[in-house]
């Protein structure tokens, strides 16, 4: 090994790893090295156990039953809601809507918000670093209502051009929707400051927390945004789980999204009255098992300590950055001063997908391509990048494998 010396393993890191059964498996004859956490994290035994227990002992349909199991399932589902309220420090469970994930949450807001608040000539302000799911729903809403999508610039190092964002706010701005942490660059945005600025113009605010949730420590009261959305599967929880937080008064003021059971109070063929929050936005039988699993993921993160998670991830980020930069011609895309454990990189004379295909044969999972941020990649003039994203179950040794793998790939490709 050359360059940076591998730091000593952190004891907490070892106990974290133990919780994830999948990490023991082999891929292409090598021990799996999973660096695709920003796409989806693996699941700890605690989450799998909670889902199993729910289906083994507690399942029935929620909210409408008088029988024992229906009551029990309802209790479990509503406790999961309370758990998630606590996870982001919301005021009330009426502000916590269970969704399929982040994309589902944004689509819900885009549809219901636009119906009520968006009019011809109004503007929605986003940033250049948004994921497609925080671009397309707004484009659709704008097309529908004659609104205009305005985009704030990103600087060369991958930070948000805050001055540009500020200059693009006006009385026409109806809503500012901004990513908390960029999936492609790792940039952490100053969301509290952005929200405060947007409020000066009377604009509503949505924060896309898909990449922030896995790090915990979210406080929606402190950020003071109107909406906060995230997925469960990136924060050690099950797929098909997610949360839309909305300020009660704002959610009250919007029309329903989907219609069906659960979201109604009374139905006749002439007129339907709608249920109270949060049920107004949860049409149909919800995904109870996913909610229970998501609450278990929040427990898991808190038991382990978000401080410990952050400490491990920062150590991994720092070590990986130093070591990857040893590689001749390697450039990191996204070097904002405030960033999380995501490293997007390109290597001169090679294509990201070729590097990804070669290191896959060594059992190393990274993501290659445009990371569903095509406009951002176009801005940097890139066909895409290789992205290694770390979770607290990754190790310094795995980073050494990544560096060795990339070096081998580069040698083959050049």
């Amino acid at each position, binding site marked *: 090994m050359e360059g940076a010396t591998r730091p000593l393993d952190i004891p907490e890191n070892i106990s974290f790893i133990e919780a994830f059964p999948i990490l023991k498996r082999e891929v*292409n004859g090598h021990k799996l090295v999973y660096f695709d956490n920003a796409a989806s994290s693996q699941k700890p035994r605690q989450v799998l156990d909670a889902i199993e227990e729910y289906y083994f002992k507690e399942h029935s349909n929620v909210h409408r039953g008088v029988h024992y199991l229906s009551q029990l399932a309802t209790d479990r589902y509503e406790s999961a809601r309370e758990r998630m309220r606590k996870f982001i420090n919301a005021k009330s469970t009426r502000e916590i809507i269970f969704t399929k994930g982040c994309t589902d949450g944004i689509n819900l807001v885009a549809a219901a918000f636009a119906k009520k608040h968006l009019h011809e000539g109004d503007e929605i302000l986003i940033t250049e670093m948004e994921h497609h799911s925080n671009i397309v729903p707004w484009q659709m809403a704008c097309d529908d209502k004659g609104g205009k999508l305005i985009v704030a610039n990103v600087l060369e190092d991958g930070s948000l051009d805050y001055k540009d964002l500020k200059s693009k706010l006006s009385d026409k701005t109806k809503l500012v929707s901004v990513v908390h942490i960029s999936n492609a660059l790792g940039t952490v945005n100053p969301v509290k400051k952005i929200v405060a600025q947007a409020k000066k113009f009377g604009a509503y605010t949505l924060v896309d927390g898909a990449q922030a949730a896995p790090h915990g420590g979210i406080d929606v009261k402190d950020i003071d945004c109107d909406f906060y959305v995230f997925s469960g599967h990136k924060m050690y929880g099950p797929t098909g789980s997610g949360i839309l937080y909305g300020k009660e008064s704002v959610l009250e003021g919007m029309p329903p999204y989907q219609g069906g059971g659960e979201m109604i109070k009374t139905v006749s063929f002439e007129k339907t009255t709608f249920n109270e929050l949060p049920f107004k936005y949860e049409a149909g039988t919800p995904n109870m098992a996913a909610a229970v699993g998501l609450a278990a993921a929040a427990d898991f993160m808190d038991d382990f300590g978000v401080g410990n998670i952050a400490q491990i991830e920062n150590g991994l980020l720092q070590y990986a950055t130093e070591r990857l930069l040893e590689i001749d011609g390697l450039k990191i895309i996204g070097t904002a001063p405030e960033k999380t454990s995501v490293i997007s990189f390109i290597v001169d004379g*090679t*294509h*990201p*997908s*070729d590097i*990804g*295909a*070669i290191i896959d*044969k060594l059992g190393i999972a990274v993501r*290659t*391509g*445009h990371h569903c941020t095509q406009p951002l990649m176009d801005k940097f003039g890139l*066909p*895409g990048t290789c992205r290694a994203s770390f979770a607290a179950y990754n190790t310094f040794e795995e980073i050494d494998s990544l560096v060795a793998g990339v070096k081998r790939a580069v040698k*083959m*490709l050049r």
Partner: protein
Amino acid sequence: MAASIQDREQEIIDEFEFFPEWMEKYEHLIELGKSLPLIDDRFKTDDNIIKGCQSRVWLHSEKNENLISYSADSDAVITKGIIALMIRVLNNQPPEDIVKAELGFIDQIGLKEHLSPTRSNGLVSMVKQMKFYALAHQAKEA
């Protein structure tokens, strides 16, 4: 008479028997990719582009007498290596044979994963497009 599609597939299967290890296979593909004559710049147009999530592929076809010829390029070299194999098999073949070709050799040489739609490297669409061109040329003939 040129070798048939099947003969050419067999030739490649035999050739790849010398590369049992993935690394040798990939090295061979990279070599093929690097030696593939580039598509003429005038055909490297947006009309000829096949977009995948991972890599881009350009494909051009021509018909001379009753045979179709292809030229192609990709920004990713492993993809380009596989393109070189496809072109070797399908180049200067009659359109009706191209339309029918099953191209099982990719599976047999252990590169099936590259032709999986989930890879999104443009290869699946490229094969479709190659056949589509053949069909179009065939239709023009009729």
